[in-house]
């Protein structure tokens, strides 16, 4: 066996013997972890909290279901013990002062006053502010207390909001029904509007059509009538002229007749004298001869003719008179006709003038009416468009409103329902299952650091170290022996911790081999670090204090006490490089997350850190040996 190996084995045996002979150290190393794990295990177990409660004082001057709901909500948190002080005080101010005084001197964890009319103000839609005074010197509790109060406030506010929304919902449902009714009438309105538009079109059409017709018809009729009248007048004048000519002819004829009659009469009377002479000649006085009869017949007929001629003469005279009268009348009529023609001409002029004026007025009226109609049409179009848009909007509103009121107020208040499903079944896992990795890390860190730093300091400060330094066995085997011996002790401790975790706290581990390896590696890191501290320390107290000084930040930065994500950025950066963080990550990835990649990364980083620490410890020992 080589001398170095002999030295290494001898040193290893010595270290182990020393560990087991040093009763106090052994007890501390064995018992401390047990105490810590039992304590932290109990701390992170899911058992009920202790009997000590946080005292909370309040004054309920409202005494309504809302204030009772608020208080009841807080009372549901088992950690709080609520007491109402309202009965001891006559007014809010004195009660508030009492609560503030007691909160500020630490007798109450927090306090609040529910003022009178609290609910009424809320019901009236006026938000209320309720001041809650927290005793915030216990920084680790005040966050929880605020969470409780905020949770209950939210719960009560939700309840109030729910009531308000339920009422609003009813109103909205009514409004929706009315809207539905309006919408139902919208087509009718639209039809009416269309009809109105049609009528407007018709009116406009009529406005264009009749005005042209009336104007032209009237003018045409009047012109026609005037033309007719003119023609009639002309006809009448022609007739009158003919008539006058005829009358003149008649008068001439009558004169002619009269003259003829006179001649005739003379002839007849000559005939009569001849006949009478003949009859006398025939002395047909008492003779009935044929000649006398014929003369007699001629005489009778001559007399009749004479008589008729007398009548004709008279009639001709009368006709002549009458023709004269008619001619006079015709002249009168002719004059009247001239006057009528003159008036007709005047009327024609007036008609034309009136027609022009009327046309102008009609044109102006039509233009104005057309513009107004156009405007009205546009208005109607706009109204219709607006009506259509309104209808569309109303329909959309109705649909939305219908969809809205179809929802429950609860779904509006809390539209997103949180269904928190844990990746790790709560029925199977307990808090200790997640915290155990931090707990084990802390225990290993404290034990290894204190064990090795004090051990190293004792060694260094005793002459045994000096003697060992000049021995054949170099620093490396001795350092290795020390590390391995301490690591063996720590491995036993690791196994004990794992056993307690499993059998006492029921922790569920996976990949136990990895866990032991990671914890052993961590223990080697802190053993090496402890050796380094022990080498650098000038007293055992310094070694212990420096170990604790290093351990405490590592504990707080280990994610066990304060979540990593809540740490300051600089602390996070430091925490990332802490072997405790690496170990916790590696342990979790091995046992909890079953994530080989992250496990390898964290474990790898831990191994590197451990190697560095061991190297530093070795260098410190070598430096010490070199004087």
């Amino acid at each position, binding site marked *: 066996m080589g001398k170095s190996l002999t030295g290494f084995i001898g*040193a290893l045996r010595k270290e182990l013997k020393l560990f087991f002979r040093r009763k106090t150290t052994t007890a501390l190393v064995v018992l401390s972890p047990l105490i810590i794990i039992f304590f932290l295990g109990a701390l992170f177990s899911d058992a009920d909290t202790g009997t000590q409660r946080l005292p909370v004082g309040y004054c309920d001057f409202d005494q309504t279901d809302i204030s009772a709901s608020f208080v009841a909500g807080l009372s549901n948190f088992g950690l709080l013990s609520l007491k109402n002080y309202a009965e001891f005080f006559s007014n809010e101010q004195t009660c508030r002062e009492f609560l503030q005084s007691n909160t500020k001197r630490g007798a109450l964890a927090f306090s609040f006053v529910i003022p009178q009319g609290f609910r009424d103000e809320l019901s009236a839609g006026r938000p209320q502010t309720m001041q809650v005074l927290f005793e915030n010197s216990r920084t680790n509790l005040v966050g929880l207390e605020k969470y409780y109060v905020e949770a209950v406030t939210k719960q009560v506010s939700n309840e109030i909001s729910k009531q308000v929304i339920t009422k609003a919902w009813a109103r909205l449902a009514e409004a929706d029904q009315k809207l539905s009714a309006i919408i139902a009438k919208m087509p009718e309105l639209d039809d009416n509007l269309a009809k109105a538009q049609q009528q407007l079109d018709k009116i406009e059409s009529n406005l264009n059509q009749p005005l042209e017709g009336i104007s032209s018809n009237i003018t045409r009729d009047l012109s026609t009538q005037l033309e007719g009248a003119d023609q009639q007048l002309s006809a009448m004048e022609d007739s009158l002229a003919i008539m006058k000519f005829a009358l003149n002819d008649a008068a001439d004829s009558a004169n002619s007749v009269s003259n003829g009659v006179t001649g005739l009469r003379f002839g007849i009377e000559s005939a009569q004298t001849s006949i009478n002479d003949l009859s006398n000649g025939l002395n047909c006085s008492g003779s009935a001869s044929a000649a006398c009869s014929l003369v007699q017949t001629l005489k009778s007929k001559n007399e009749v003719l004479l008589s008729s001629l007398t009548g004709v003469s008279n009639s001709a005279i009368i006709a002549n008179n009458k023709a004269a009268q008619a001619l006079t009348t015709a002249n009168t009529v002719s004059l009247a006709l001239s006057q009528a023609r003159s008036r007709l001409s005047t009327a024609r002029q007036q008609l034309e003038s009136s027609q022009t004026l009327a046309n102008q007025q009609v044109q102006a009226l039509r233009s104005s009416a057309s513009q107004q109609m156009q405007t009205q049409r546009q208005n109607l179009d706009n109204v219709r468009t607006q009506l259509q848009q309104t209808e569309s909007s109303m329909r959309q509103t109705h649909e939305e409103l219908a969809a809205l009121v179809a929802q429950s107020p609860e779904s509006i208040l809390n539209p997103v329902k949180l269904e928190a499903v844990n990746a790790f079944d709560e029925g199977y896992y307990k808090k200790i299952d997640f915290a155990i990795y931090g707990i084990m890390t802390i225990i290993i860190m404290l034990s290894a650091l204190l064990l090795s730093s004090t051990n190293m300091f004792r060694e260094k400060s005793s002459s045994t170290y000096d003697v060992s330094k000049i021995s*054949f066995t170099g620093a490396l085997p001795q350092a290795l022996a020390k590390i391995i011996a301490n690591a063996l002790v720590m491995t036993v401790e690791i196994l004990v911790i794992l056993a307690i975790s499993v059998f006492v706290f029921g922790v569920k581990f996976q990949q136990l081999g990895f866990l032991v390896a990671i914890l052993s590696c961590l223990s080697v890191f802190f053993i090496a670090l402890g050796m380094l501290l022990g080498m650098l320390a000038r007293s055992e107290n310094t070694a212990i204090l420096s170990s604790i000084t290093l351990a405490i930040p590592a504990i707080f930065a280990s994610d066990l006490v304060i979540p990593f994500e809540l740490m300051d950025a600089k602390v996070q950066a430091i925490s990332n490089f802490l072997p405790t963080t690496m170990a916790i990550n590696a342990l979790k990835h091995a046992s909890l997350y079953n994530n080989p990649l992250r496990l390898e990364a964290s474990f790898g980083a831990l191994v590197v850190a451990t190697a560095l620490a061991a190297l530093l410890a070795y260098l410190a020992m070598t430096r010490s040996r070199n004087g």
Partner: protein
Amino acid sequence: MNLMIALNASNLSKSLGKLNLRDVSFSVSSGQTACLLGPSGCGKTTILRMAAGLLSPDGGKVRYALEKGNEITPRELRGSIGLSLQEPALYPELSLRENAEYFASLQGIYGEAFSAQFADLCLKLELSEFAQQEAGNLSGGQKKRASIVNALIASPQIVLLDEPTAGLDYNSRRLVWELIEELENEGKLVLMTTHYLEEAEYIGEYLVIIDDGRVVAQDEPGALLSNVLGKSIVRAECRPGEHFEPEQVRSILAKAGAESVACNDSIVIAKTLKPIAAQAALEQYITNRRLKAFAVCRPPTLDDAFFVLTGRVGAEIAEKRP
């Protein structure tokens, strides 16, 4: 088979706190026991630690010269040095044997070789019956001797002992002395520190007297005494409550032919070739001063030389030990 080794310390200097070691040079060879002698805090242990390679000197060097002529540093010689420090190098929780076993293992010694050596050393230092006892339960003297066992368990060529008999009773001291003589006889190089003048005088083949961080004298004991005080001295000591007047005493002795006078309030040592005259003059002074002291004329001792060299008496430095 033992090698011939010589320890050469040359111009060593080291500052450690109040200690200011300077220009220390001496040499020790195999088969020789050298004693570093001096008052507490003078730097003896520091020199020993430098010789062991536990401390590096600020200046100067410690080298071990081998037979072949080459020189090596103490660190290169590790494993061949047995070291016993003032504080016993023992783990109190381990038995004496376990302690020795550990230190033997560091030197690669185990099994029968260890057992034989351990038994031999225990026998020589009368520790056999305590071999299985925890070191913490041993007496101070037993611990001291056990520490020497640990130093010698691997039969080192160089043995460095820092006050190996401090606090030991006379019997134990004799055992240690005998062991050292045996080592010396075995041809080993032994360098030890002591504040016991008689011990140094008894076992030291070479003395290095150190005071205030420097070597004030070094030589073999006889030569050292001769060089410092000659063949005979006149010495007088006051009783408690009395005191000399150093200047007057020096003047009287100088007139009486003394070569040199070392004197303080209570001790006068005069180096002279005319001891009778010096003794008479000193007695005359004592009588005149009506002191109860008396002057003697005798060959010088190491204590006398120590007083002359350091102004301190051996008992004084011994009493000052913690």
